[in-house]
């Protein structure tokens, strides 16, 4: 196929192209070989990952209150199954074999030659998931996906394609995690989301990496008329370097994108996390909210909103709390108006905990430590509009799990 050859060529040409943000990684330092893991028909038969390890990645081993699961360890898809009608889960390779039309979505939301990491996913042995909600299908329970790295120095290449067909709803809880003892490892994750007319996708992602891990997710989202994309991203545990800048393109009238990110950087962690929304149809709206806390690590919290046509609304909010003097928070909010009648705004604030607030709570009987912890939890307590109650509960539970260790 002509286009496939073209994709290959573009990937090859970008093989050494550094990313605009984040430290530049030497891909030759990682290995592609990892032991083959065998497939299990039910999650409960999975011996490689225990309940607790899966829970760290937001995955319920019993599969209760989930409409399906996908688990990949290193380079092996060990489980994938949809439990409800109207939902499909396959590995991306399987799906590309099964559906010819899927090639029409392949590298369409993310450019294969974005940088050397997208190129490396295309050129290397990759896996990843394909999830699809059929037209009009709605499920109460979310799908869950887990991408796990166990093999030291392994580069995990993932290409996900997620499609919510017209009028459907797709809720996904996903976790990426690695063994804590891992000294080095690299996760390259391409995710392409397609939200069709009147459809909605909520994507709740928790990252639990290790001190030696480098992570480069690459996400692109296309939202059609009246569609909604919501991303809730939480990372609180150590990571060596993490850089992502997902970009949503709102191409249909009245489309909406919301990004929420909660970032906690431990000492030695380098995080460069942004969200971008391009509003190119009337009545589109976008919201980008981030809360960043450094306990000694570096955080760049970026946001970029581009209004290309009139009659769009967007807001960007970026707040940072410095809890350790070694820490750095660099907030970079950008608004780009390209039409007369755009309504875009941002607010950004970076600082330390106000002593006045600590003393206020101390006067109510909280010790200094308890007061600080209450204020910090409050800071991270962002109200997420439009998240179904079940997901909100799950999100809270996952955050509490991470908070216990991180704060």
């Amino acid at each position, binding site marked *: 196929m002509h286009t496939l050859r073209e994709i290959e060529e573009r990937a090859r040409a970008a093989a050494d192209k550094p990313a605009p943000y984040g430290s530049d990684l030497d891909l030759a330092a990682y290995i592609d070989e990892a032991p083959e893991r065998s497939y299990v028909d039910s999650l409960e038969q999975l011996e490689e990952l225990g309940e607790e390890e899966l829970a760290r990645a937001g995955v319920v081993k019993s599969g209760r209150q989930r409409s399906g699961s996908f688990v990949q360890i290193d380079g092996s898809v060990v489980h994938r199954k949809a439990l409800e009608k109207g939902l499909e889960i396959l590995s991306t390779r399987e799906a590309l074999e099964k559906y010819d039309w899927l090639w029409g979505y392949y590298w369409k939301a993310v450019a294969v030659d974005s940088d050397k990491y997208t190129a490396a996913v295309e050129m290397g042995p990759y896996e990843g998931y394909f999830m699809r909600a059929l037209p009009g299908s709605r499920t109460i329970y979310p799908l869950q996906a887990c991408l796990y790295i166990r093999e030291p120095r392994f580069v995990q290449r993932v290409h996900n394609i997620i499609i919510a067909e017209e009028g459907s709803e797709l809720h996904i809880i996903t976790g990426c995690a690695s063994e804590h003892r891992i000294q080095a490892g690299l996760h390259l994750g391409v995710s392409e989301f397609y939200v069709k007319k009147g459809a909605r996708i909520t994507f709740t992602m928790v990252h639990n990496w290790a001190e030696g891990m480098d992570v480069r997710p690459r996400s692109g989202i296309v939202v059609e008329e009246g569609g909604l994309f919501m991303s809730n991203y939480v990372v609180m545990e150590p990571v060596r370097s993490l850089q992502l800048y997902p970009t949503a393109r709102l191409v249909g009238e009245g489309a909406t994108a919301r990004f929420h990110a909660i970032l906690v950087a431990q000492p030695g962690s380098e995080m460069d996390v942004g969200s971008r929304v391009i509003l190119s149809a009337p009545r589109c709206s976008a919201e980008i909210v981030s809360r960043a806390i450094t306990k000694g690590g570096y955080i760049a919290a970026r946001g970029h909103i581009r209004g290309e046509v009139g009659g769009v609304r967007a807001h960007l909010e970026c707040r940072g709390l410095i809890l350790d003097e070694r820490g750095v928070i660099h907030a970079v909010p950008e608004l780009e108006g390209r039409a007369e009648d755009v309504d875009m705004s941002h607010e950004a604030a970076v600082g330390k905990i106000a002593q006045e607030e600590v003393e206020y709570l101390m*006067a109510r009987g909280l010790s200094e430590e308890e007061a600080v912890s209450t204020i910090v939890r*409050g800071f991270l307590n*962002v109200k997420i509009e439009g998240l179904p109650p079940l997901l909100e509960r799950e999100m809270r539970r996952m955050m509490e799990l991470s908070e216990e260790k991180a704060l």
Partner: protein
Amino acid sequence: MDTMRLGLGGGDLEEAREDKETVLRVEDLHVEVEGRRILHGVNLEIKCGETHVLFGPNGSGKTTLLMAVMGFPRYRVTRGRIFLGEEDITGLPPHERARRGIGIMFQRPPTVRGVSLAQIVALCSRDGVDVEGLAADLNLGDFLSRDVNHGFSGGEIKRSELLQLLAQDPRVVLLDEPESGVDMENLQLVGRAIRKLLQKDLRRRRTRCGLIITHTGYILDYVEADVGHVLCDGAIVCSGNPREQLEGIRRYGFEECARCTR
């Protein structure tokens, strides 16, 4: 024995107070704020069940006295001592004082984002407090889920502070200008809550006592006080009947107050 200087009409008062237990005692208190000496030699004794009011011109050190009693580190005690009952609490941090039974109503409390009024009330509540009921009494039912003090009006702030104090149930209540920024409608509600807080309508013996800073004296229309003090330039220059003091201050101003004791 009595470190207080009793001014106008204080004669009978002293006798009536003798058999009651002292809850808060401030002895020769000197306080600095950021290197500036604000209080020099304040003496004060509040007995169980009593309400004291503190008058004084702006900058005389009224708020400093309350903050020092609460124990905020910015208000550094350079001399003197503070006792709660028999215990010397001069060196204790604010939360230890709060846990021992001192509660304060802030004049301008900060907003704590992401922490709801309900949460903060739960944090400071004694067991078995009917938070919803208290909130309903203070007309704050709809405010429980809101971030504490975020976008609250003057009256709402006062009511929220009083809700927290009622839940906390302290023995010593410190109120910093409870009537400031409150409209007439709210003032009644605030006055009623303070009466409740200070057990003014209790038939049994009161277990709480209070110290109220008032600039205007309006709060005295709602809450009777037992003793008044006038603070000028960091020292108490007059202690006595609060109504008579207020009358004197209204008529002659604080200058005269300071002069009369010389």
